[in-house]
């Protein structure tokens, strides 16, 4: 029963991604033509390569979808899956981390990320969370800023 579900899921994923390649590839090819297939000397222009890459994507995607539809085994692999809550939560956390780096800088954002990922999501003991946060931030500062002399962003606290 599970394999039937997986096969259907894979079939759907194959067909969706394959069909999505058609407009994406078409847009890339069109942009290639707009950039110029030839340059003013008659040789390959800036759009030559993008045109062919886009055309190949536009042609390859539907073929992939068609193969998935035709094949009795629903394509050529398995293991396709639906996004689960844990994955979406991890993606949300990553997005929040990116926004936080812009606002409060790298160290505070990283500390907040550790607290959220380890304290609230993984539910580790708080002393462990705080220890990992402190040690990691110190190591980051030591390696990147002190030894390699690469200043990490401080967001709104830049002047401090």
């Amino acid at each position, binding site marked *: 029963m599970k394999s039937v579900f997986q096969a259907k899921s894979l079939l759907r994923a194959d067909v969706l991604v394959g069909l999505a390649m058609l407009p994406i590839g078409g847009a890339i090819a069109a942009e290639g033509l707009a950039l110029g297939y030839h340059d003013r000397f008659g040789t390959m222009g800036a759009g030559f390569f993008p045109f062919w890459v886009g055309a190949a994507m536009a042609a390859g995607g539907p073929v992939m979808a068609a193969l998935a539809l035709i094949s009795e085994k629903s394509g050529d692999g398995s293991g396709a899956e639906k996004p689960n809550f844990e994955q979406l939560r991890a*993606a949300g956390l990553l997005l929040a981390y990116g926004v936080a780096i812009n606002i409060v800088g790298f160290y505070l954002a990283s500390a907040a*990320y550790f607290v959220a990922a380890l304290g609230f999501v993984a539910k580790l003991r708080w002393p462990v969370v705080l220890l990992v946060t402190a040690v990691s931030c110190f190591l980051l500062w030591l390696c990147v800023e002190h030894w390699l002399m690469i200043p990490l962003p401080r967001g709104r606290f830049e002047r401090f």
Partner: protein
Amino acid sequence: MMLLENFAHGLWTALQPINLLFVFLGAVIGTLVGAFPGLSAPTAIALLLPITFSLEPTTAIIMMAGIYYGSQFGNAISAVLLGVPGEPSSVATVIEGYAMTKRGRAGVALSISAIASFAAGIIGVIIFALVGPPLAWLGLRFGPAEYVALILLAFCMLPALAGQGKMKMIVAFLIGLFIALIGLDQFTSQARFTFRQPDLMEGVPLVVALIGLFGVGDVLHAPSAPANMAAAQRVRLREMWPTASDWIAMRWSSLRGSVLGFLIGTLPGAGATIAALAAYALERGIARDKSQFQHGSVEGLAAAEAGNSSASIGAMLPLIALGIPGSATTAVMLGGFLIWGLEPGPSMFQKHPEFVWGLIASMIIGNAMLLVMCTLLVPLFARILQLPYSVLSALVVVFCAAGAYAVNNSIADIWLMMGFACLAYVLRLANIPIAPVALGLVLGELLEKNLRNALQLSDSGMLIFVERPISLTIIVITLLIITAMAWFSYRRKPPASAVPAPVSISR
């Protein structure tokens, strides 16, 4: 006889205590820098170059070489333990090394990496000493047409990287090619697919893309511990050493990877990435049992690491024999040469034999030191895996973000890294392999630049590729390989009832 005499003299130079100390320092610094995602040998060498001004040129170049090899090994550490390729040349190491880690063989994977690198160091030095200058001359004969032919040959690697699903593999490769197109056109400076974002004008940094695709992408896809990941890997010295079957599996693959890696490494611009991928693909192509590949193949890991290390020695050849840097690292080294008052070129072997042969001997000593360091430190490195998976994945995300930022000191690169992680996640949901995307990214820029250069130089259009002997030879080899692959694939096709349970092809 002269060769042995020169080599003995070089060995004597390299074994001077001061040189030993600096090669050790270089290897340690290189390993630490290489283990940090996003930081690579050119960064470390550029940062340490001012320190070497007060040293003897021979001591200074020996230290630089130590950093170079050390960073290669450092890359292997992050690739094997965390699945993060510190540099593009570690993609194949991630595929097999991280798979071995998931099977509880992290210590063995690190040992195999170090042993294969050491073997490659020895083999690379032998080739360097014996046929170095003629090979460098041959490398100079490589024009744009030959590079295009070589890249076409590299396309034969695709099936090796993707396993099953040829159409998905091609689509993934095209996605990689498209991403490589982003940025200013190299010939006309027209902005392509930049969406008016100034940060995209210089294109997508390869390292940032790879960190996102492999490192953070993996965390997004598996936020909790993978079921087959050994929860705690308490590695003892005797457990980290490869078994007899591992030794048998890796002996010829290391040799093949070393020779192929060296040859590709001597070509300016080709670099360790293509060398490692080509060595890996060759191994998979000729393997009798392909089922282990992408699931922790010893042959694949040994070949990739040998190719990677040997290419770094090969890249020294055009630098010393011709004064042409073949990679970013050797370009920084060339700057050092000029500052130290040395003029690399064909006369270097005659004018400064102690320098050249000292450097050659230090390659062996540096690799031997790395092997010893690995033996002593692998249990320590592998302890990282004893951390709870949630801690490990959070560390990967934060250190990858720092590494992505360090590439160009730009927050936009952190966003790019996250974007690539999301792309990898979506592709994995659709069961589309990631490795061909990386190959497309690596080869895209090279292919377009050389194709356009070749056609601009040609009076006969596409015929340039068959008019030049080296290019024609490579194209014939490519066609033979494709024909052989198609033939063996047809012959080996099992009956429908005998098809084994398919496996995930997420990498």
